């Protein structure tokens, strides 16, 4: 992707991150030229979208089929009480554009299916996970492997969360671990700060991936808020994975 230069306003806006060693104008230019798709704009997606927008990712698509409910407001920080009943992607697009008008935010009001996923992620440099169930994640995972697009998985429940970066053909994919939807995972409860924490790590990893140095490829970062413990473990590919083993 062709790297874009920075204008004077951008040099001021991003001043605090331009001074980071290894980032600089070149890194900011890469962010400006990048296109990220965030699937799901709930607890995870609201936080990752906010920080990727603030950081200056050039184009972001946000995908969700849901409307705002009162019970979302403990964790979905882009929405207000006055937004209840409105489409999440529309509200999120408006709020994110106010945060950073230079970022092109595209709202996609759709439920992810096998049929539409390829067109949803078409052209994306990275797909960031903001979903709330395994079956949709497996659909996204499979499409990302097929189209060779890195996918940053993040998942939470209660006070715990996990994240890994899936690089098709190089690291394990979600189907390496869960070939089918065998684990029911929703409804255990979520404290809002936990998806925010995991999503911010996803956003950081996305930025690092765009710059060229992801940290969690082939590694599983696990956070346990019960005792405030972070662990990072190596994970390996399943040589018999029906999704990624032939790549």
């Amino acid at each position, binding site marked *: 992707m062709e790297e874009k230069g920075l204008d004077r306003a951008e040099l001021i806006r991003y001043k605090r991150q331009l001074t980071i060693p290894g980032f600089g104008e070149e890194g900011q230019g890469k962010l400006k030229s990048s296109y990220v798709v965030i699937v*799901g704009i*709930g*607890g*995870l*997606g609201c936080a990752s979208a906010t920080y990727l927008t603030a950081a200056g990712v050039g184009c972001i698509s946000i995908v969700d089929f849901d409307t705002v409910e009162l019970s979302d407001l403990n964790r979905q920080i882009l929405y207000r009480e006055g937004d209840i009943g409105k489409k999440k992607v529309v509200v999120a697009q408006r709020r994110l554009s106010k945060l950073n008008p230079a970022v092109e935010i595209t709202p996609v009001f759709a439920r992810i299916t096998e049929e539409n996923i390829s067109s949803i992620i078409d052209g994306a440099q990275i797909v960031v*996970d*903001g*979903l*709330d*169930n*395994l079956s949709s*994640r497996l659909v996204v995972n499979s499409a990302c492997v097929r189209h060779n697009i890195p996918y940053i998985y*993040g*998942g*939470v*429940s*209660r006070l*715990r*969360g*996990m994240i890994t970066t899936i690089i098709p053909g190089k690291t*394990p994919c979600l189907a*390496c*671990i*869960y070939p089918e939807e065998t*684990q029911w*995972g*929703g*409804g*255990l409860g*979520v404290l809002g700060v936990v*998806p925010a924490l995991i999503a911010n790590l996803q956003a950081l990893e996305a930025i690092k991936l765009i710059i060229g140095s992801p940290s969690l490829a082939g590694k*599983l970062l*696990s956070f*346990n808020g*019960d005792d405030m*413990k972070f*662990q990072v*473990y*190596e*994970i*390996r*590919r*399943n*040589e*018999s994975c029906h999704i990624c083993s032939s790549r």
Partner: protein
Amino acid sequence: MKAVIMPGFSELIIIINPTGEVTREGLLSIIMPWLYAPWPEAQQKGIIEVEVKGDTLRALLIKLQELYKQVNVDFEPINPMTNDLDFDYDVFVNGKNYVTLPHGLDAKLRDSDEVKVKMLWRWDG
């Protein structure tokens, strides 16, 4: 009791007091290598043998978490706050979820029983 552990690709498979030789032959490649962590030689051997004091599922799980704790691997199936199975795990005995056993975690294990400890990922958002 004696427990022979075979790391699967995302779970531990444990045979209690096996009557014959136990090997990993035919199992898929392991994707979570830290499951071998407390016993470095097990990576070559493929299986892990441990002696457990007691004969219940709980005794087995407590022994496992003691061993993993020694090498700083976060493997704690018995939640210390609830003294019950932690929600990061699922446990099966001979294919049946432990909650369906008459005494749950305190069910006695028998010779050749197969225990599976699955580590669960998080899927909410």
